[in-house]
């Protein structure tokens, strides 16, 4: 938002001028109003720890984060390109494996991936799309470059908070919306519905779409319920669905069994179907994989799509884009060392103090080592972990993440942030205008996850006067 020299970037000028005209007391009052709105709207997220599940109010900073529309156009293009390539990759992996035969990706990369599901081999889902909803984590480095840090292709969450943040900001700063051209975000639920509807196996005007949630104790239950409500579809649990002898999926309603066409599942792969995966899972639906393989139900994201968001596969994404699309990646990757390769592992072990080490299958910022900030004990522990199970770790340089002004204790202070836009891919593609900005509320911290004390901001894609 602010250039290195302390001057506001052009698209942020109006916002910056306005915010600096407000006194600390005025800002404080706006923050209070926002917090009140959040608690009244019941925007919560659930925290697992502390012995029980607790609904906490969603942590929100009223100062919006701005990005210029012209820059966003490029990001949007980059995200579409990336998801197109990733879907082509997944489709290939479960079918011909051309990319392996052509030597671009080592076979063991797939065979050793926890997210590779042999049950998916030979499936051809509609539109060649496996990951229909992708949440990409973007970060901006000190020099202004936007990198893709992660592709979340399994059950990415956060979009409901993006929508709620906008509603709150409109209440807190209505005057800024009339003075700036800020791209709207509120068409996401209808875009999501259209994407899901395009996966229906039956040619109907109104296919029966449901959101499958693990239940009220899941940390993202608020979002599951929010999306179901805003799409006007049923929010179901595993027990509400059953697979008939005809290999079709039905939901149990008061009028009897009703056929379901598309399931937007927010349950992890291995819990989806106790017949196929974890037999102890009560969250899934016995026979669901059978119904999906028979082409009788659409599942978003498709089982097995996670094979492409393994953090080890991440290291290959630029090559994947070049291979399937014959294009250069629009958005760069963060340089990544894969510990499974001997030479790269040696470099990682030699430089642990300066690197970020990530387990390949975790999300939510859990199980990471941030070298420069870690204790000696933690570094030694990761050294052991990497040596025991090198396949499980990748390492990246510490990026000097960009900051944005954030209201802390009544005054504006810089805090590190990232951005999670959401990309949809069904019959057509769609990228949210902006996304969920997450901010580390602790000074100097790089951890933005809400489960670990991070906050969020509204994200504004702003058109400047000379753009249209």
């Amino acid at each position, binding site marked *: 938002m602010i250039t290195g020299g302390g001057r506001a970037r052009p698209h942020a000028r109006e916002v910056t001028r306005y915010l600096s005209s407000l006194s600390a007391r005025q800002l404080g009052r706006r923050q209070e109003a926002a917090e009140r709105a959040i608690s009244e709207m*019941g925007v919560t997220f659930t925290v697992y720890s502390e012995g029980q599940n607790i609904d906490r109010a969603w942590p929100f900073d009223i100062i919006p984060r701005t990005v210029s529309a012209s820059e966003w156009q490029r990001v949007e293009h980059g995200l579409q390109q990336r998801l197109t390539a990733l879907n082509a990759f997944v489709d290939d992996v479960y079918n011909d494996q051309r990319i392996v035969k052509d030597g671009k990706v080592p076979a063991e990369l797939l065979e050793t991936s926890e997210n590779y599901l042999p049950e998916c081999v030979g499936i051809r889902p509609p539109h060649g799309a496996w990951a229909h909803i992708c949440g990409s984590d973007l970060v901006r480095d000190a020099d202004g470059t936007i990198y893709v840090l992660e592709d979340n292709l399994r059950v990415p969450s956060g979009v409901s908070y993006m929508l709620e943040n906008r509603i709150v900001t409109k209440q807190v700063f209505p005057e800024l919306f009339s003075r700036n051209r800020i791209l709207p975000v509120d068409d996401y639920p209808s875009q999501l519905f259209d994407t899901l509807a395009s996966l229906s196996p039956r040619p109907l005007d109104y296919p029966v779409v449901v959101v499958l949630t693990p239940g*009220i104790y899941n940390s993202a239950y608020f979002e599951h*319920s929010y999306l*179901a*409500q805003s799409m006007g579809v*049923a*929010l*179901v*649990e595993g*027990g*509400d669905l*059953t697979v*008939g002898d005809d290999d079709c999926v*039905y*939901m*149990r*309603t*008061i*009028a*009897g*069994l*009703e056929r379901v066409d598309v399931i937007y599942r927010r349950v992890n792969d291995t819990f989806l179907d106790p017949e196929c995966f974890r037999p102890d899972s009560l969250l899934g639906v016995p026979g669901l994989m059978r119904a999906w393989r028979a082409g009788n139900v659409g599942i978003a994201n498709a089982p097995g799509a996670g094979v492409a968001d393994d953090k080890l596969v991440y290291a290959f994404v630029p090559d994947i884009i070049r291979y399937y699309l014959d294009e250069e990646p629009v958005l760069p990757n963060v340089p990544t060392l894969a510990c499974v390769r001997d030479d790269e592992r040696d470099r990682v072990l030699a430089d642990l103090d300066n690197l970020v080490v990530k387990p390949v299958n975790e999300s939510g910022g859990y199980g990471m080592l941030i070298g420069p900030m870690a204790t000696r004990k933690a570094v030694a522990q990761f050294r052991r972990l990497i040596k025991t199970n090198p396949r499980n770790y990748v390492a990246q340089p510490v990026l000097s993440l960009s900051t944005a002004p954030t209201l802390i204790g009544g005054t504006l202070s810089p805090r590190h942030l990232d951005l999670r836009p959401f990309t949809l891919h069904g019959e057509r593609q769609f990228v949210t205008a902006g996304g969920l900005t997450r901010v580390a509320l602790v000074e100097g911290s790089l951890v933005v996850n809400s489960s670990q004390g991070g906050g969020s901001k509204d994200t504004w894609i702003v058109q400047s006067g000379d753009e249209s």
Partner: protein
Amino acid sequence: MMLSRVAERIYWSARYLERAENTARLTRVYGNLLLDLPDAAGVSWPRLVEITGDDAAFAASGRQATDRGVLHFLLADPGNPGSVLSSLASARENFRTSRDLIPREAWRTVNELYLYAGEHLRRAVFQRRREEVLGTVMQRCQQVRGLLADSMNHGEAYQFLRIGRGLERTDMTTRIIDVAAASLMTGRKDLDPYRNSLWIAVLKSLSAYQMYRQQVRRRIVDRDVISFLMFDTRFPRAIGYCLGELDHSLRSLPRYEPPLRGVLRLQRIVADLDIAAIDLAGLRAFIDTMQLDLASIHRQISLTWFLPDAPT
């Protein structure tokens, strides 16, 4: 179409809310009765759990059969699933998990009510605080019902609320008549002067006293009160009214026949009841039959809508 699981939660949320209110009503009226009747009448708090059939559960709770022991069991015992506190906790949990369908204000009021109950019901064990605490609980239950009636679509979800409430209310009105009948069955002539107080207390426990007086312009007699509570179709806590409401709500749902048959059967049994010819023991036996019928209607509701497995 509404999910079976959701319908079941909505149904139970209404039942538990009504049960909490009714148990509060029963406790309040019984307390007043204790003040009015002489000790010789044999009414006592331990006697109440015998009449309501909760004596086994009470014995299992390990509490002493003292006044306070019984009151705590009925009002604030989290280990007694039928206590006011447990009923409110169950109502809250069912409302919480049906938030998609329940107006936000109603959920918030239920939540506040539950928090209030957790803090104050313990004190309602004491006579001095009972009126205030139980009065507040009842008032808030009514507030929730008002919010639901006024700010919710009167569609399928609302019909499940009405059905849950109607069944629970019918059940409680029969129990209250049963308590009165049992209290009078000592057969002692010296208690006759108190019969009136007892029936007035029964009417008041159902907020029915004023409406009864408007309808029945005579001295209060047992049979008139029982007839009013059994047959009246205009007073919302009378069994005749509740069954009519159930009839109406059931018909607005798909595949309503099996539970409706149960309601029609019960309506017929009640209509055939000859109050003039029945004694107190007969009345209590009749109420037992009614309660079996109510249980069977619940079973039909559950089989029809909550566990539908047969493809349509």
